[in-house]
């Protein structure tokens, strides 16, 4: 066990917590928060395990990937929030409408 695996496990935990919240909660803002927490979990796994080089300098490639990932996450969050607001303005509820035709 090392710090790498410790934080990687925390990442797994965050991923699972986020997934649970995404399934259980109906409010869209909560779902968006849940996606963000899940994302942080995945990023943590990616970066934590990059520390296993056995030297002081970790593997830089996952670091770059995660920076890409963070920017993707904020873009997606902005789009999701806008959709949520517009949908709420339309329906009066910050939740997904009932399935149509299902």
């Amino acid at each position, binding site marked *: 066990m090392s710090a790498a695996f*410790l934080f990687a496990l925390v990442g797994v935990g965050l991923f699972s917590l986020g997934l649970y919240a995404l399934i259980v909660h109906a409010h869209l803002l909560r779902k968006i928060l849940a996606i963000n927490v899940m994302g942080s979990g995945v990023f943590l796994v990616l970066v934590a395990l990059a520390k296993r080089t056995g030297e002081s300098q970790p593997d830089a490639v996952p670091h770059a990937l995660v920076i890409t990932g963070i920017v993707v996450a904020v873009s997606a969050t902005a789009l999701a929030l*806008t959709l949520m*607001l517009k949908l709420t303005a339309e329906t009066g509820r910050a939740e997904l409408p009932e399935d149509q035709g299902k």
Partner: protein
Amino acid sequence: MEALTLLHWTFDILLGLGLLWLGWRVLTSPDLFNAIVLFVAFGLLMALAWVRLDAPDIALAEAAIGAGLTGALLLAAFAKLRTVEKNHDIAGQLEKGKLENRSFQWWPATFLLVVAAGLGHTVLSLPHYATGLSAEVSANLKSSGVSNPVTAVLLNFRGYDTLLEMVVLLLALLGVWSISGSALPREAAPGPILDTLSRLLTPVLILVAAYLLWVGAHAPGGAFQAGAVLGAAGVLLLLSGWRLSSHLAGLPLRIILVAGPVAFVAMAVFTMLTGGQFLEYPRAEAGTLILFLETAATLSIGTTLAALFLGERPKNKREYP
């Protein structure tokens, strides 16, 4: 030495537990506003975790984007949500957010415990030492034009990802503008405190952005971090009631928004016309070219993030929409 190791471990374990606990509270806090504040705090702890994992580049990005801009986005969305709900005369939504949390659901919880256990087992089964691509990175760092390995990966070895990523930002903005229509009327003027604060803070933010951009070549920093800080400056200006004047809100704004991807595309065409591969910079000028790309990218990223925060397309009378 023994005590130091112990302290390191205690710090890491506390931080890890804190992250899990905060993550849990973010997702289960009865009050939505509370959840957002907790999410910002969660972002701060994440940034500490990046520091502990020797990833200062990510810590910078997280501090600026994860905790800062996402927090501002969420707060603004929360406020708008309340206005929308008030207009709809349905006060129940935010209340409803409170109620739903009481119900703990067993099936998903059990399922996810199994998933977590499986993934945890998988992670632990990975080899304890793995160099990944660190050897390749350090072997080629000299010819990459920069000495910060993360910048080398982002702008050179995997520069193509970065190009696509800037398109992701642009697409998000296109989506937001397409969905939300044109801008709200100008906001009320800020009070004297905010006015002074924004006057003081904006130049500092811009200066820090420029510093991060420049330092990224050899130390943690770079286009994304600089862009995020620049975006924060834009957010601050927007919050103090400032809006882009309408004759700049059309084509000039759009040109800045696409400057980053356009610089990359131009670079790609240039490198291929001069006989190289797609985005293969001439070795001697790699450093300069990367700085050029990063400057364009910083401008675009900062402007796009600020525009995403505003949410609506700035008004411009001469053009539609």
